[in-house]
C-alpha cells in the first residue's frame, strides 16, 4: 500500500475553537497538525501588541493549546506546522520551549523557527532597489502611506517549512507563511515531491485551501441542507489524507459532529475565490477548474485531477498602515412602528452631528432586522417588526469627531423617538483603523534572507 500522509486542521483563524487541536490529536491517528492563525489584518494587530510589549506579537492562544497537546504529540510523533509566530516567531518559539521544559519534555522537542518574512525594517531599502510596492488593487505608490506603515510581511511558501521538517523539527513556527504552505510543506516533505512538480504542488495547495479555515469544510457555516448537519457542538475539524499521486481524501475523526460531503468541500473551495483558473501562491498556481470531487464513503470526499502551473517570480506582501478612526453604536427600537422610530432617530442624530460641524469621511446607517445585510434587496421594512436595531458607524481621519459621535448616542434615549432600549453597554469605543495594503515584491529580494533554525527544548 502506498504511503498516505494525514494532515489535520487544528485552527482556522486566530479566535477559532480552542478544543479543536486537542480533539484532533486525541480523536484518531494523524501525522501532522496544521494551525493557521493569520488573516490579512492579524499581522497589524500583532504588531501593535509587540510595540507595547517586545515579548508579544504572536498568537497567544497557540502556547496553551500546545501545552495541552505536547505530551500526546511527543508520544505519538505528531508534528505541528503553524504561522502562530505572527510578527514575533522567536518569542512564540521561546514560549513553547518553556512549556515543553515545564512538562518535563526537555530534550524531546525540537522547534523549527522560520524568519525572514518581516520586511518592515527593509522597506526603504526595497524601495531604493526599485521594488515599488504599489497597492495591487489601486496602483497607488507606497509613498502615499509610507510614514504610516505599521507592519510589512512577505508571504513565504512551503519551502522553509520543508527545510525545518528536514532538520528534524517537531513543531514548525513561522511568521507570514501562507495558510496553504502549512499543509503543502508536510506533503512535500513526506512524499518527496519536487518543488517544480506543478500538478502535485497545486494539489497540495488545494488540500491546504480546503482545511485552512478549519470546520468551514466539515459542516460549519454550511448552507446546503444546514438543518441536516448534526452535532455541530462537537464538530470534527477536517483532515486531509494525501497520496503520492496528488489525490487526497478529506475526512474527519469518527464520532465527531458536522459533515464532510461534496457540498461542504465545494462551499469551502469557492470561499474567497478570485479567478479559479489561477489560484496564485508562492509555491505555484492551482487551477480550481481541474478539481474532481466524489463522495467516497461517509464523511469522506475524494479530491483528484488537480493541475497546476509554475510559480511566479513575485511574492505577495501584506502591509498594514494607520488609516484613521471609527466608531459604531447601536440602539434598539421596539414595536409598534419600530423601523419608523429608528429611522427618525437616525435623522435626529445626523442633524445634531451636522449642527456640531463635525466632519466625517463617512456616516453609515443600517437597520438591523430590516436592511443591514441585504440592503435594498431586503425590500420594504416590515412595519410590524417586533424590534429594529439602529446601527450607526462613523469614520474620520481625526479622532476628535469620532470621539464626539460616541457621546451623541446615549442622549437619544431621552431626547429622541420613543420605545428605545439596549444601551447598557455605554458609549461605543473609538477604534483605530489599521488598513491593509497588498503589494508584490521580487522573490529574489526575500528568499535569500529567509532563515530556518532548529531550537531544542
Amino acid at each position: 500500500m502506498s504511503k498516505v500522509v494525514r494532515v489535520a486542521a487544528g485552527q482556522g483563524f486566530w479566535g477559532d475553537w480552542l478544543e479543536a487541536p486537542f480533539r484532533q490529536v486525541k480523536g484518531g491517528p494523524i501525522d501532522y497538525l496544521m494551525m493557521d492563525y493569520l488573516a490579512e489584518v492579524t499581522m497589524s494587530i500583532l504588531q501593535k501588541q509587540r510595540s507595547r510589549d517586545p515579548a508579544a506579537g504572536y498568537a497567544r492562544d497557540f502556547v496553551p493549546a500546545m501545552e495541552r497537546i505536547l505530551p500526546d504529540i511527543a508520544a505519538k510523533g505528531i508534528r505541528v506546522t503553524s504561522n502562530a509566530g505572527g510578527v514575533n516567531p522567536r518569542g512564540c518559539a521561546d514560549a513553547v520551549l518553556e512549556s515543553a521544559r515545564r512538562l518535563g519534555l526537555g530534550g524531546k522537542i525540537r522547534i523549527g523557527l522560520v524568519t525572514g518574512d518581516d520586511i518592515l525594517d527593509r522597506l526603504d531599502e526595497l524601495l531604493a532597489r526599485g521594488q515599488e510596492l504599489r497597492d495591487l488593487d489601486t496602483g497607488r505608490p507606497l509613498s502615499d502611506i509610507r510614514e504610516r506603515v505599521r507592519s510589512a510581511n512577505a508571504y513565504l511558501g512551503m519551502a522553509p517549512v520543508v527545510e525545518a521538517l528536514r532538520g528534524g523539527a517537531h513543531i514548525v513556527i513561522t511568521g507570514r507563511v501562507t495558510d496553504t504552505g502549512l499543509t503543502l510543506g508536510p506533503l512535500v516533505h513526506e512524499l518527496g515531491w519536487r518543488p517544480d512538480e506543478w500538478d502535485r504542488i497545486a494539489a497540495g495547495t488545494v488540500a491546504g485551501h480546503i482545511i485552512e479555515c478549519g470546520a468551514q469544510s466539515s459542516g460549519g457555516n454550511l448552507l446546503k441542507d444546514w438543518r441536516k448537519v448534526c452535532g455541530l457542538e462537537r464538530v470534527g475539524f477536517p483532515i486531509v489524507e494525501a497520496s503520492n499521486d496528488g489525490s487526497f481524501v478529506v475526512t474527519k475523526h469518527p464520532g465527531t459532529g458536522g459533515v464532510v460531503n461534496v457540498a461542504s468541500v465545494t462551499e469551502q473551495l469557492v470561499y474567497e475565490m478570485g479567478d479559479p483558473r489561477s489560484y496564485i501562491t508562492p509555491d505555484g498556481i492551482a487551477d480550481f477548474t481541474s478539481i474532481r470531487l466524489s463522495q467516497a464513503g461517509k464523511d469522506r470526499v475524494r479530491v483528484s485531477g488537480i493541475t497546476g502551473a509554475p510559480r511566479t517570480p513575485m511574492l505577495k506582501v501584506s502591509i498594514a498602515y494607520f488609516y484613521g478612526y471609527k466608531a459604531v453604536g447601536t440602539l434598539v427600537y421596539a414595536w409598534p412602528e419600530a423601523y419608523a422610530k429608528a429611522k427618525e432617530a437616525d435623522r435626529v442624530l445626523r442633524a445634531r452631528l451636522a449642527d456640531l460641524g463635525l466632519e466625517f469621511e463617512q456616516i453609515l446607517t443600517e437597520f438591523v432586522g430590516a436592511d443591514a445585510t441585504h440592503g435594498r434587496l431586503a425590500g420594504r421594512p416590515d412595519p410590524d417588526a417586533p424590534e429594529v436595531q439602529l446601527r450607526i458607524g462613523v469614520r474620520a481621519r481625526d479622532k476628535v469627531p469620532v470621539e464626539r459621535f460616541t457621546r451623541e448616542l446615549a442622549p437619544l434615549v431621552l431626547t429622541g423617538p420613543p420605545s428605545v432600549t439596549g444601551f447598557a453597554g455605554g458609549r461605543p469605543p473609538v477604534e483605530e483603523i489599521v488598513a491593509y495594503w497588498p503589494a508584490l515584491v521580487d522573490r529574489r529580494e526575500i528568499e535569500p534572507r529567509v532563515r530556518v533554525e532548529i531550537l531544542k527544548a
Partner: protein
Amino acid sequence: MRSEREKRSKPRPVPVQLRWLAHARSGDKGNTANVGLIALEPELYPLLARAVTAARVARHFRGMVSRVERFELPNLGALNFLLHDALDGGGTISLKTDAQGKVYSTALLRMEISAPPAVARRFQPRLSARR
C-alpha cells in the same frame, strides 16, 4: 397534473428564486466580495450558467457594486462572481455589518431566474405542494 394548455404549447418558463436551485458561500478580497454559486444538483448547472450572467447579477446588485466578473467551474457545478466595490471600503475600513462580505452570498440567492416549469415543480416547495 399539467394543464391542457401546457401540454399543447411549449411550456412557458416561470420565475424561480435562486435559493431553490443553488447554495452559495462568499468571502472578501479587499473591497471586492466573491460569491460562489453552486448548483444544488449537477443537472441544474447548465440552467444557472445560462441564466445567471454577469450582466444579470450586476443588475441585481445595481447601486451596491461597481462591476461584476463571472468565472465558470463546471467541474464543481459552480459559478464564481466577483462583486467589485461591494464592501464600502472593505476590511477594517468598512463600517458595514457585513464588512467582509460573509453573507453577500445569500443576497444573490434572492435573485429570480426563468426556469422550465418542470424544474420549478421539482425544486420550488410552494409549487410542488400545489401539485
